[in-house]
């Protein structure tokens, strides 16, 4: 069953559309919301800690554990030989060994697991293991990887039209390139798993993961047991952001092996520094482009190459680089396009999912292109952006999905006028002319983000709705709560069906023995998929109750109404709780599992075409920044955001996602600076050196509004996904910094400004802009055709 009738009257919408607080908010402010490490270990509980490789690339010659074995509290040292099943936790493709056996492929790769009676003892013993290596040269340079075609997966490209010809014919041809830094998730709760053996020879695993089903499957494979012997439970994460989609698996599997070997409950929690070192991050990218445009800035052709630093293994990189390709157009129409994506192998930790999943890195290419066009032609960047938007007649994406909803022009117009773009543009230009040390910049950037897993089969979900005889309701679904408010929204959706208060609905731990075969809570799809499944189950129960009441009281079924916790029917009414009790004594089933599969989505990878996205979420951000020409210090002084969440299920939660996503995107592009040492170890391995935005970085003026527009597709209550899209609104900050830099060139050139745009990167860009100005501004280039390509 895929489609549902949705009631829209004002009264009926009493639960959906309300800004109720997060379901755990009171517990969170009391410190009583329980995270995994808050659980008391059993008296005989053990703690595991991985032994990490001290080199980046090489062969393991010997591992001497004698010193560790005799340390106090050490119970057992687990090796690959202790793994009963498969020693690999690759999520899609094999190649992620649980314990490295022969070869080390990235610095700090796990080799062994110390099991001890305390966390501290396990950690100390892990450092006492002596390993001898035969070191070999490491691949750390992406340019080498590209040159040697050193891929973790083969390239994939989107092609449309005749790019070569169109570039030759274009009046202006511009090219550019950019390095884009990665990003550490910095979920406040680090990776943690607790595994307990069950009496059937199975395993009960509690894990901070976005993907309980995959943890179940991998633990089962590692233990060589059928899936049904492994149960995974996940109540809440202290943040995920993609970092617990595949990266939670190794610790869950290690804990499970250790629990299997010792027969005891084993807990593994990574210390923050090691969490930085041994879990994957957002892929750094190196992008190159050529674009052909006419004299008005209209794009005629693009040739874009996106190179993702995948790390040592494939992990999810195939899908991530694909999503980068799918977003290298952002909101702009490319009549002729070639967009190629390379999956480069480098000897680092395997980079992984992170909010946006490659989309942001692809979108950066589009936003660099439109800015470069604007400065090259001397046109305001906003005009170039508006000129190139998808619109009827220019609606075909490079992957041949037609754009059907054209809201971007209207959204831009709204921000442009309400946030007074042109007045501020003029004021900033004036300010910059008179200000020798500080320059301001302004930029409006759009976001069009495709919603659906690009892997078709993941677009499904299940839910279990249980109505008890007192009218209280318990809901399980396949999604996971990581702070995004999924459980709150699900409660509102189910409450809406029964017209009862959302507080009567309890949505708690996700368990693989309640809802099987669930997809990861990722791709912004949590509410779309699980909300629909829960809606499906609740609607079935509701329909059953309507039919029961009609039959029981011999009234027409269409006279039955659910309203404000009451049920009305011809000639009578009762509380919802009374109806539940009545149904129970009349032996009516009050539970149901629900299911949902997203319609319409498909993608033929061989032809590089299809309809990978059910719909698109949209947003517009206008950011104003200041940069210091002496130091490169920078700040965001004002941000105006208009975002499209369709009909909001919970506006407060949606706005929370938008604000948080924006700041996280801003951090990615400004202060968050991942650095590796020459030997391949991570230099910025902790919050002392890796700086996510702090409270003062929140723009002094920060206006966020929801765009008034329902989802034209049949999504849950016509809402739209909101998890990832706002992240990319942060691109406006980077674009605004380039705009401030362009004030040094009379707005005719902006340095490409590789990211993160740290003070140092900005100061270097200031020098680049000044050099350009010195070389070009006194002899204005001849008008006419330019050939930079």
């Amino acid at each position: 069953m895929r489609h549902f009738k949705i009631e829209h009257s004002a009264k009926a919408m009493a639960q959906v559309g309300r800004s109720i607080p997060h379901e755990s908010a009171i517990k969170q402010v009391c410190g009583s919301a329980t995270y995994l490490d808050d659980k008391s270990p059993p008296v005989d509980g053990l703690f595991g800690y991985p032994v990490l490789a001290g080199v980046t690339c090489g062969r393991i010659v010997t591992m001497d554990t004698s010193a560790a074995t005799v340390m106090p509290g050490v119970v057992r040292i687990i090796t690959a030989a202790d793994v009963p099943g498969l020693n690999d936790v690759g999520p899609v493709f094999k190649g992620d060994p649980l314990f490295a056996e022969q070869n080390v492929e990235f610095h700090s790769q796990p080799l062994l697991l110390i099991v001890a009676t305390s966390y501290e003892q396990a950690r100390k013993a892990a450092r006492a293991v002596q390993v001898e290596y035969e070191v070999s040269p490491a691949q750390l340079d992406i340019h080498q990887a590209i040159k040697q075609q050193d891929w973790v997966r083969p390239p994939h490209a989107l092609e449309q039209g005749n790019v070569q010809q169109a570039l030759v014919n274009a009046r202006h041809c511009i090219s550019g390139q950019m390095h884009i830094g990665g990003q550490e998730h910095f979920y406040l709760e680090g990776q943690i798993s607790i595994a307990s053996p069950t009496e059937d020879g199975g395993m009960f695993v509690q894990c901070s993961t976005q993907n309980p089903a995959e943890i179940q499957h991998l633990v089962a494979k590692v233990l060589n047991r059928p899936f049904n012997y492994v149960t995974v439970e996940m109540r809440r994460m202290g943040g995920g952001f993609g970092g617990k989609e595949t990266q939670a698996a190794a610790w869950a599997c290690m804990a499970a092996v250790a629990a299997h070997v010792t027969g005891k409950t084993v807990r593994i929690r990574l210390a923050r520094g090691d969490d930085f070192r041994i879990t994957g991050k957002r892929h750094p990218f190196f992008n190159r482009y050529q674009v052909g445009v006419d004299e008005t800035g209209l794009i005629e052709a693009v040739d874009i190459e996106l190179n993702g630093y995948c790390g040592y293994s494939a992990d999810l990189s195939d899908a991530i680089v694909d999503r980068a390709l799918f977003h290298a157009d952002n909101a702009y129409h490319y009549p002729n396009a070639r967009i190629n994506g390379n999956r480069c192998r480098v000897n680092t930790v395997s980079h992984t999912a992170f909010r946006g999943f490659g989309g942001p890195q692809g979108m950066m290419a589009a936003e660099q292109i439109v800015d470069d066009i604007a400065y090259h032609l001397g046109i305001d960047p906003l005009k170039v952006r508006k000129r190139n938007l998808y619109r009827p007649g220019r609606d075909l994406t490079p992957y041949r999905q037609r754009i059907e909803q054209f809201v971007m022009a209207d959204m831009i117009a709204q921000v442009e006028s309400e946030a007074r773009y042109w007045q501020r543009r003029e004021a900033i230009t004036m300010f910059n002319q008179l200000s020798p040390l500080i320059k301001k910049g302004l930029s409006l950037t759009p976001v069009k983000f495709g919603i659906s897993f690009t892997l078709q089969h993941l677009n499904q979900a299940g839910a279990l709705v249980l109505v008890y005889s007192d009218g209280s309701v318990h809901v399980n679904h396949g999604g996971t709560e990581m702070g995004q408010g999924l459980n709150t929204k699900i409660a509102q959706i189910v409450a809406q069906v029964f017209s009862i208060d959302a507080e009567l609905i309890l949505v708690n731990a996700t368990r693989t023995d309640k809802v099987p075969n669930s997809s990861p809570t990722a791709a912004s799809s949590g509410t779309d998929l699980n909300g629909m499944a829960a809606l499906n189950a609740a609607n079935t129960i509701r329909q059953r109750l309507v039919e029961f009441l009609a039959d029981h009281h011999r009234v027409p079924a269409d006279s039955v109404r659910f309203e404000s916790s009451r049920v009305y029917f011809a000639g009578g009414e009762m509380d919802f709780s009374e109806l539940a009790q009545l149904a129970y004594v009349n032996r009516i089933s009050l539970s149901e599992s629900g299911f949902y599969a997203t319609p319409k989505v498909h993608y033929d990878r061989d032809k590089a075409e299809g309809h990978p996205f059910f719909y698109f979420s949209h947003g517009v951000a206008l950011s104003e920044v200041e940069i210091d020409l002496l130091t490169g210090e920078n700040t965001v002084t004002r941000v105006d955001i208009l975002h499209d969440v369709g009909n909001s299920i919970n506006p407060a939660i949606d706005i929370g996602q938008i604000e948080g996503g924006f700041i996280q995107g801003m951090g990615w592009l400004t202060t968050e600076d991942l650095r590796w040492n020459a030997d391949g170890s991570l230099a910025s391995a902790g919050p002392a050196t890796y700086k996510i935005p702090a409270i003062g970085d929140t723009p002094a003026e920060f206006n966020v509004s929801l765009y008034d527009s329902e989802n034209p597709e049949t999504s849950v209550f016509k809402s739209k996904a909101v998890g990832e899209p706002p992240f990319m609104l942060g691109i406006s900050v980077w674009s605004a910094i380039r705009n401030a830099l362009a004030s040094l060139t009379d707005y005719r050139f902006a340095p490409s400004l590789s990211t993160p745009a740290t003070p140092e990167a900005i100061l270097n860009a200031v020098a680049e802009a000044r050099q350009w100005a010195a070389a070009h501004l006194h002899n204005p280039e001849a008008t006419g055709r330019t050939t930079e390509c």
Partner: protein
Amino acid sequence: MDAVHFDLTCCLLVFDGIGGEHLIQFMLNDEYIELTTAAPNLSILDWLRIHQGKTGTKEGCASGDCGACTVVVGEYQNGEWHYRSVNACLMLIGNLHARHLVTIEALSPAAQAFDDLHPVQRALVECHGSQCGFCTPGFVMSLLALYLNHSQYPGKRTVIHALGGNLCRCTGYQPILNAAQRCFAYPRVSSDWLAPAQLLERLDKHTEVPSLTSGSHCFFLPQDLGQLLQLKHDYPDARFVAGGTDLSLEYSQQLKCAEPLISVSQCTALKRFTHTDTGTFIGSALTYGELVGDFCSIYPETRELFERLGSCQVRNGGTLGGSIGNASPIGDPAPLLIALQAQIEVQSLRGSRRMPLEQFFVDYRKTELADDEVIVGFHLPLRPDGLHLACHKISKRIEDDISAVCLVAAFELEHQQIQNARCAFGGMAAVPARAHHTELALEGQPWSLNTLKSAGEHIQQDFSPLSDVRASAEYRLQVSRNLFTRIWFEQQARIDNVNPSPVTRIQHAAL
């Protein structure tokens, strides 16, 4: 890792010499606690979570950088209790002696009904200030300290300085800023429960050196200078600790074993700030939070430097003596004190000595301090008339970050000529140091942009900085040069208050 060999017999002997029981006494919320045995390097965080099962306080990083473990600690000073936020992962359990530790559990009624919440909790719920909730207890405790120390909303800048050490990865902070304002709008709740009189009554019975032992490891908390000097004489291997803002990382990150520890944080002689007509004395064990008010009344130009030094929690634990004693090349206090011609006073049972602070630093993390000596404090000469003081800290993030470059420049202007120029840098060499060539290029020169710019060109004669995770050598040199241009524009704006002066700084909310 250096193994610490410690003679147990010696420990017990001397211990008995100083006298009495081994005991630490404090309050945990409304519970009186006595500890005799605990690892001296045990953090409050581990004690709470592992030993007490109080898991409301979260571990985010265990390095004092995220604020998830923030707790509030009360100290009885001048007849009343003062409450401040600190990182539970940095503060060692022994330093809780005579203090009142307040954790999130104190604010959490059993019923957990909305109406029972403290205003700071209620405001966070109403403003949607928690998402994943893991950072939330830390924010609650930082907000509680703010609430206790202000009777009304103190303004956004103060809020930002109170919360700059609490990281949130979900919300983008906007709802938390709103909550910080809203909590003051509700009817004010009494904080009478925060006056643990019983602790004071019980404390009176004990006058010897409070201490903890665990096997051969020990932690001493001398109350006066005599005790301190004696202990350091008896335990020349002992490490000093105050806020533990640096030392604790050796335990939590490097997993080092505990040496004998001597805490200076309750030694009254080291906690004085005096300002007389001969100059200023700053006790080495004063926390930044305790000294900043008095210091800035003499040197208001240093306010930003102190506001950006670590986080509020770190400023409530960290001390000048700790930073100087560590001889970190990237600490901000050293350049400041060097530029102000500070003398450091150290003392031992052999006597006391003073030296210019810049001579105290011998090499990377090496100082002149002998094994039996203690840093007592810092002497500053009287502020010269016509002193110009410029403090500049450059870091990737404005708040709670370590300087890539820190420059403190002090000079006087006589008849538009630069006199007594002192330019002290952090981040540019293995030790905090003056830029002598640069100073020479300023000395006696006319006050002009040209002078400043030319002087800045001498930086590369003074320093060959390193490239590291915070910045490249080139950036450090370039910025150091450029800061002289900024100094001219800033000071010129003060000198010439007639003409409109150009904007010299970005408008960051924390500045």
